[in-house]
């Protein structure tokens, strides 16, 4: 079988690796529009922030392709598909026959049609990232257009490099697709404290030499303008080949298009009415498609979306339907804006259908997994939001400890036994140890035994 993959980004490269893992024999050719080895787009924000170096985001080494007998044709975009002949054609005229074709063309950044926009740099590829970094070196002030996930990460990253940043956002609050109003405000306040000026409810009318002119004429000064205005699926190739395309290339539960020999995965694909823009669904799709292509029976049933911001000193996780109100769901909320903390649970039919966690929290892992698995939400909602809150109080003082409480676990000695031992004349730890073996195992109960003996002595007015 000859497998051709169009696109060597996160979805395409993953699919190639997944297929090769399952089948050592299938002939694989992958075409990538970018000339470099595939890299992890999720980590570009870290590169922008300086917490990862560009070489640290590479997903597969060039040597991997040799070792796994995969032909990678990089820097060579595919320009058309000839379905009758069963081959793809590249920009430089190469024809590559396929038995199975996978489209993983991804998406392109949305560039607002405003004058001077060519002065701005979109934030999408590793090249973009490097361009932004070069420009940032000499810059005094930056503007980021777009306050979605990527825009927030870019703004935080640039601010972390010491560059004053203005973040412009059209909607009334940041990350409005993931956050409710209050979470958006708390996030804005947190970012403001980190050197990002937030302007919501505004849009750029033009990109000028010295910044951005907002609608209404007000200027936002900058010598670096970064665009993070969302993405649009790249579906032209599929549409021209006559495949069904709506917002993305339409696929079924096997990730097959309406041509059974052609699959589509990742940001260019539309499954059950949804085009996903995150990596987790793309990788889930890659695994299912790889399984189907190699003769398996996996099915893709959609993905649950968890958005996790990658920005230093800003912990934010948002998942599912965060904007439901009390009319449609049970909402549990805790807000402490002074500390940059906001936590929200959205529960319907006893299941967690949405959550927002802003600020450091041990709850994030538990809630993400509860959301992912669709498990029942425990009755104690507060304990979910504040892990440790419901833990039984520890009897710290020997006075409060019941006689039945085990003091020395290693030798199974209770407070009552220590008391009995004291009553029989033991007046120090050594005496108790000799009689009960308490403290002779791991030794960590020594303080507790000392405390109990001391307290008993005190009770009786005995000085040791």
């Amino acid at each position, binding site marked *: 079988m000859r497998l051709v993959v169009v696109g060597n980004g996160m979805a395409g490269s993953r699919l190639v690796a997944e297929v090769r893992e399952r089948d050592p024999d299938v002939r694989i050719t992958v075409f990538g529009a970018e000339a470099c080895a595939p890299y992890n787009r999720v980590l570009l924000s*870290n590169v922008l922030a300086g917490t990862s170096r560009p070489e640290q985001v590479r997903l597969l080494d060039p040597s991997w392709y040799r070792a796994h007998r995969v032909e990678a044709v990089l820097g060579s975009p595919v320009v058309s598909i000839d379905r009758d002949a069963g081959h793809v054609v590249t920009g430089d005229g190469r024809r590559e026959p396929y038995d199975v074709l996978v489209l993983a063309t991804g998406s392109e950044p949305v560039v607002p049609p405003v004058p001077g926009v060519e002065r701005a740099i979109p934030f999408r590829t590793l090249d973009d990232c490097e361009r932004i970094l070069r420009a940032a070196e000499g810059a005094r002030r930056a503007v980021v257009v777009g306050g979605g996930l990527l825009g927030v990460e870019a703004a935080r990253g640039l601010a972390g490099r010491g560059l004053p940043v203005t973040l412009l956002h059209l909607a009334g609050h940041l990350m409005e697709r993931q956050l409710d109003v209050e979470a958006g405000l708390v996030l804005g306040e947190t970012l403001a404290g980190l050197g990002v000026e937030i302007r919501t409810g505004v849009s750029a009318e033009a990109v000028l030499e010295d910044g951005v002119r907002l609608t209404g004429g007000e200027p936002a000064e900058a010598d670096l303008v970064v665009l993070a205005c969302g993405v649009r699926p790249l579906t032209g190739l599929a549409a021209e080949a006559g495949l069904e395309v709506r917002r993305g290339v339409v696929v079924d539960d096997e990730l097959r298009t309406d041509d059974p020999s052609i699959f589509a995965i990742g940001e260019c694909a539309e499954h059950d009415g949804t085009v996903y823009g995150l990596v987790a669904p793309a990788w889930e799709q890659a695994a299912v498609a790889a399984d189907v292509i190699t003769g398996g029976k996996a099915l893709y049933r959609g993905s649950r979306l968890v958005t996790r911001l990658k920005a230093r000193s800003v912990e934010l996780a948002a998942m599912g339907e965060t904007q439901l109100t009390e009319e449609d769901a049970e909402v549990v909320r805790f807000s402490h804006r002074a500390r940059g903390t906001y936590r929200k649970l959205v529960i319907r039919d006893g299941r967690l259908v949405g959550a927002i966690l802003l600020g450091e929290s041990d709850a994030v892992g538990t809630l993400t997994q509860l959301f992912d698995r669709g498990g029942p939400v425990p009755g104690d909602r507060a304990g979910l939001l504040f892990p440790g809150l419901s833990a039984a109080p520890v009897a710290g003082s020997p006075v409060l400890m019941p006689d039945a409480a085990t003091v020395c676990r290693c030798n199974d000695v209770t407070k009552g036994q220590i008391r009995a031992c004291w009553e029989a004349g033991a007046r120090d730890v050594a005496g108790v140890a000799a009689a009960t073996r308490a403290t002779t195992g791991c030794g960590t109960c020594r303080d507790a035994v000392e405390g109990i003996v001391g307290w008993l002595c005190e009770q009786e007015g005995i000085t040791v």
Partner: protein
Amino acid sequence: MTAGRTHKTDKTHKTHCPYCALQCGMEIGTGREIRITPRTDVPANASGALCQKGWTAAELLTNGSRLTTPLLHGEPVAWEAALDHVAARLSEIRAEHGPDAVAVFGGGGLTNEKAYTLGKFARVALGTSQIDYNGRFCMSSAAAASIRAFGMDRGLPFPVTDLAGADVVLLAGANVAETMPPFVRHLEGPRAIVVDPRRTPTARRAWLHLQPAPGTDLALALGLLHLVVAEGLVDEAYVAGRTSGFEEVRTSLASWWPERVERITGVPVYRMRQAVRALAAAGRAYVLTGRGVEQHAKGTDTVTAFVNLALALGLPGRHGSGYGCLTGQGNGQGGREHGQKADQLPGYRRIDDPAARAHVAGVWGVAPESLPGPGRSAYELLDALGTPGGPRALLVFGSNPLVSAPASERVAGRLAGLDLLVVCDVVLSETAARADVVFPVTQWAEETGTMTNLEGRVLLRRRAVEPPDGVRSDLEVIAELAARLGHRFPSRPREVFDELRRASAGGAADYSGITYERVEAGPGVFWPCPEPGHPGTPRPFLDRFATPDGRARFVPVGHRPPAEEPDEDYPLHLTTGRVLAHYQSGAQTRRIAPLVRAAPEPFVELHPDLAERLGIRPGDVVRVSSRRGEDRAPARISDAVRRDTVFMPFHWEGVNRLTNPALDPMSRMPEFKVCAVRVERDS
């Protein structure tokens, strides 16, 4: 000799504890009653510590349930008759079905002398390839990963006392406060980071507890290593000078960014960051793994991921830092070195290595080509019993697989299908109770032999008390059977040890310079010790690792989910582990009154939220079922366990009916530590 016990009067004998791999030093005082006191000249417990198991160990020697006569189909029988019967049946089965129709199952509690003799007995007297042991369920993943990374597997490649000088110790899947309490004293100085799905007594005392979902430790290790790289904390000079293969690992880490790992493991990113920063900031640090991360179908790769973490931080092979695994059973270290493992010959040699075969065959006085090749691993061996092409007879020494093997009902069925089951044990264990023939054997303080503790330190236990009438040592049983099969085997421990020394010479675990006298003169001798004048090797990796080029090897590994994940029918994780009062299958400790008082019965530990949802109150009998079987035990409600997980201790028959025999492709370790279960109140 008269009936009952005769002890030399009012003498004390230096020995070591009969239980775990720490091998605490103890003195046995034999007067009117046998008394145990801790020794202060053994580094493992030099502070004079013992746990309750150690303190009460004397009861093992006086216990009323001790076997003192061989049993044939449950009836007492004379030794000669029992030995003759077994030898005759073995010969018949061999004649009819070939040598591989007889299998041997050993144990990690056996002395080095016994482990060695058992391997020789299988290969020489029985001519079978079918030998493995319960250490496969214990140390195999750590062993495979250590050999892959360092070229050699010595649990702790440093004295245990080195730990006390560390700034930070990361314990991954190790609950030392319950499994080897005196060990905790070595951790009084360092800050501990504990990785465990349960807030165990060890985790409670930790500076930082990372609580991943069962079966996701591998992802966690990858996330930690990702952060080490991302935050520029790699010890680049060490990586360049002492390791190979880092670049491929570095690339593989791009797929394991911390936010992804958080979603898989449930461990918050900022907690991972705390752990990594503490480890990197430490001048001296250790990464230690235990069964919690090793007993998985991906245990070898999980250990590898933790080894990679230690290597990136520049820890292994440096004085005061390192990686180590915490061996479980008393002689778990020595037991995996001397040939009772399916793929091994003495001296930690590979059975498929022609040079190793030639050397060992020379010591044994047989032709190298007469030695069988590698056999089935422990679970595969048990699962093949009585099946077409599988063994028809099984000899069990120092193990209770009916309780300790995964999918134990299936294993029980296999045992029932055997033509002959022979068990050597001290008491009538669950497995012994099913045997055609049971040989009552000596134990611990009644016999002499060497043990190699978790540090790779060879220790000597000398006979301190007279064994009860009617019992013989495993070595004698093997020698008697070998004699009946036409082979002369030594049965005196020192004679066996001297042969073991020759057989191990030149191997990774070289004991040739170790003698009983040397072991007794000091607190043991560290292997490798290749000649009589050699001081032993407390820290084998300081100058070079045991790989051909002397460099430690980074190996790229990736996370994958447990073999069985929760679903609608079986919505919870089950994880299993130890309680302080008991040891392994409980065959010993469930017969000691104070230990039974401390922990009388198994239990199901579940989170209060889960208990509330299921309508379970403390003490309610709970039915836990998996695809393989079910078990019942009273509920214990505790928020120490995750809401999605229940915990059961494995010292009683039952819990392993539930566990999953999915095997690690490399180590053949079963997935004891995670499977999917359903939990209900038993009506």
